[in-house]
């Protein structure tokens, strides 16, 4: 067993893809670095914080990327985004079996302003292009920096999201909410609250992530292989699926919109002991959640 959380992006790749199969596009030796950071006299990274390429997953050709949360919080700059977009486009050109994105990002790299914003929106469009070509896109979130901002939205453009409890997925990050709306709205220093609200278990109970695994690289790999098999054949986004999602979100607001804390959401879902949820191991949690998960088709039970 090896922790997914503790590894760097570059270390995760050989654990998740078939060993020795991954070929990197624009490797660090190519030195394609951010032109914006140099202008600001800030440190650059030789891969601009993301590994992109093509490998094998259980013997199938799967394109992939891994964002490095340690470099500027995994934030997406112009080069970082262009690498993701280029990889996604090539996955379509070469008829990939699937795309697997190991995301860890605070969203747009603010240093790069509009270039970063445009990059993130291009990534979203490229993900939907891949799906439109009938190629499933699977996202894994299990790094210490979570998946926030534009990359949080990008994650939900995928067919399936795999998370660990330690992973976090949301739009605005805790500090952003507290800064904009005050500590009464959200106390970003309250780590238990932050994980209750954005962590893998809450996302799973609400149906925002479809697979919850323990913080273990083998578990992530097995889940990715299964997710690819599940999503093959229904990769493209349909109008019906969009309308079902919209309906689910409306039900969520009706059912939970006035709840001040996820504990209240879990209570309304029928979870017998909401306060005990954060302490459950993955297996015990999944057994409990099988009875009480909101799931994609439900919402206010």
């Amino acid at each position, binding site marked *: 067993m090896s922790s997914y959380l503790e590894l760097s992006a*570059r270390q995760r790749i050989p654990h998740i893809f078939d060993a020795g199969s991954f070929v990197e596009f624009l490797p660090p030796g190519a030195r394609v670095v951010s032109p914006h950071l140099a202008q600001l006299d800030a440190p650059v990274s030789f891969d601009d914080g993301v590994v992109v390429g093509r490998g094998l997953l259980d013997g199938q050709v799967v394109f992939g990327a891994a964002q490095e949360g340690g470099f500027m919080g995994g934030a997406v700059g112009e080069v970082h985004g262009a690498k993701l977009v280029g990889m996604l486009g090539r996955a379509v050109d070469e008829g990939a079996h699937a795309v697997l994105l190991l995301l860890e990002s605070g969203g747009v790299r603010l240093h790069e302003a509009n270039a970063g914003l445009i990059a993130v929106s291009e990534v979203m469009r490229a993900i939907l292009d891949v799906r439109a070509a009938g190629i499933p896109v699977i996202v894994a979130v299990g790094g210490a920096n979570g998946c926030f901002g534009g990359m949080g939205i990008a994650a939900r453009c995928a067919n399936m999201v795999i998370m660990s409890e330690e992973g976090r997925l949301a739009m605005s990050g805790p500090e952003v909410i507290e800064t904009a709306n005050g500590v009464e709205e959200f106390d970003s220093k309250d780590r238990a609250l932050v994980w209750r609200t954005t962590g893998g278990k809450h996302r799973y109970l609400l149906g925002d992530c479809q697979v919850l695994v323990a913080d273990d690289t083998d578990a992530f790999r097995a889940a990715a292989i299964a997710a690819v098999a599940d999503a093959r054949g229904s990769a493209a986004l349909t109008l019906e699926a969009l309308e079902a999602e919209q309906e689910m979100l409306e039900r969520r607001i009706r059912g939970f919109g006035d709840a001040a804390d996820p504990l209240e959401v879990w209570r309304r879902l029928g979870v017998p002991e909401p306060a005990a949820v954060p302490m459950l191991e993955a297996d015990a949690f999944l057994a409990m959640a099988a009875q009480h998960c909101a799931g994609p088709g439900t919402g206010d039970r």
Partner: protein
Amino acid sequence: METLHFRFDAGSRPLPGAPQLVGVVSSGNLEVLIEPAALNGGCEIEVRTAANGFGATWEAVMRDFHGRWQLMDTRICINDMGATPAVVSLRLDQAVESVTGGPP
């Protein structure tokens, strides 16, 4: 930011294999890109560091590194965000070992 250049001659060990990157550019950490290069037998190291004014310390750490490994025809490029000398030494050793597969 400060950019520092070092060159060491009289090394005896060429670097086998492909370029490798170890470490991450984050607070107190650094990334090291190591690759074989035709440098007339020399080992060249370029450091881009966010901590200004530590040139003498870098030089001492690099001199120790060269003493340990005696590399020739090798290019090393470092992006640093204030790593301590001990961390730099460990990362440099990790970089070489990622290419050679073991300690000297």
